[in-house]
């Protein structure tokens, strides 16, 4: 198992990614789903930064007497992704707040139930209207 230290980070990434994935598909609360999405996102960040690392390398800021640097490219991609991530999370949270205002709940089950009830009410209304038109 000599390769284990080399891929340990990747295994952590897979674990975190699956934890986030599980929250997104299995939990009913919308705020918690967003937290799950955040976990997933952070695991991708770790994946990129792990790939950019170079053994014996330094942080990519040019200094004297340093010849090996970690790759700056993944750092750039992730740096911007983090800030974009917070902006998109904010959009998600704003949607949750509006949904809560409309339905009185941020639970998926409750929202579905209310949607179904509304659909049925609409169908009933349509049926009565058709009845009246028929007459």
């Amino acid at each position, binding site marked *: 198992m000599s*390769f284990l230290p*080399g*891929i340990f980070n*990747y295994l952590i990434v*897979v*674990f975190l990614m699956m*934890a*986030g994935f*599980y929250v997104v598909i*299995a*939990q*009913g*609360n919308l*705020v918690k789903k*967003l*937290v799950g999405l*955040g*976990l997933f996102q*952070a695991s991708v*960040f*770790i994946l990129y*930064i792990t*790939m*950019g*690392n*170079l*053994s014996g*390398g*330094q*942080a*990519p*800021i*040019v200094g004297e007497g340093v010849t090996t*640097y*970690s*790759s*700056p*490219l993944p*750092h*750039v*991609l*992730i*740096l*911007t*992704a*983090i*800030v*974009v991530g*917070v*902006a998109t999370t*904010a*959009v998600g*949270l*704003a949607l949750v*707040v509006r949904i*809560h205002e409309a339905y*009185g*709940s*941020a*639970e998926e089950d409750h929202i579905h139930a209310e949607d179904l009830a509304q659909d049925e009410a609409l169908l009933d209304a349509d049926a009565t209207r058709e009845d009246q038109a028929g007459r």
Partner: protein
Amino acid sequence: MIAVAAIALSDLFAVVMLFGVYSLLTAALFMNLDAVDVAFTEAAVGAGVTTVLMLASLRLTKRWEAMPRHHHFPGLLVVGITGAALVYAVLDAPLLGDPSAPVHQHVTPHYIEQGQAEVGMPNLVTAVLASYRGYDTFGETVVIFTAGLAVLLLLGIQDDTRMRPGLSAIGDQVVLRAVIKMLIPLILLFGLYVQFHGDFGAGGGFQAGVIFATAFVLYDLVFGEGSARAVVPPRWLHRLAAIGVLLYGGVGVYSLLADRAFLDYSALADDPVHGQHLGVLLVELGVGIAVFSVVLLIFYAFSGRVRRR
């Protein structure tokens, strides 16, 4: 471990707090992997702004989660299969720190060897961010701007009638007020340092914008809701956000007018390297202004909303 705890708890307040701790730990890990700029951003954004935003939206919804559903099995099955496939894929991945990995081929050696000579700054992350990959960064700045617009469309900035400047939700905490009063100038100064020293050390527009916004968020949290608005009114921020994006785009258009490619900073001065440096500085300033105003706008939108139902 923290991730697991965050999944298991049904107290959403605790979940959000654990998420903040998780972000901070991630930042430490990035530091360890030589990604100082990224660690910086993660610490400022993940542990600071995201936590505040999530708490603000909990205030507008509910703290407690409903009883969890019982059919966890299908979810676990899907996750298990996907996880197994990913672990299988990981076995073929290049090992940590392997110099022959694909990441360290192609463009990376060019960035590292020529970066300082071509762009004229020691921080290669800033050089790649603003110059080599300036198009991407422009796109991302626009995405952030758009996200800010979306939040404003969804929530709007309301004037909470119950909001009384000087009265804070946490009450009158003398110690906290005194400490924050001393900290805020330092945070602002640090934000400026990060903004303008980003070419030489770790830092840049993205981090500086977030740090600057954090100072105002702190002020608002401790000195009472709405007190930050007295300092920076929302209508200024609308314009500032647009000005930030326009500054970035303007640099690009200027280089177009000078018969160069879009965002080719060499057009900004007679000496190409000097032009690059100036361009990066301007572009980072645009990014910093845009990020600062969007983050603060989003905070205003969440904090000003009255809870309904």
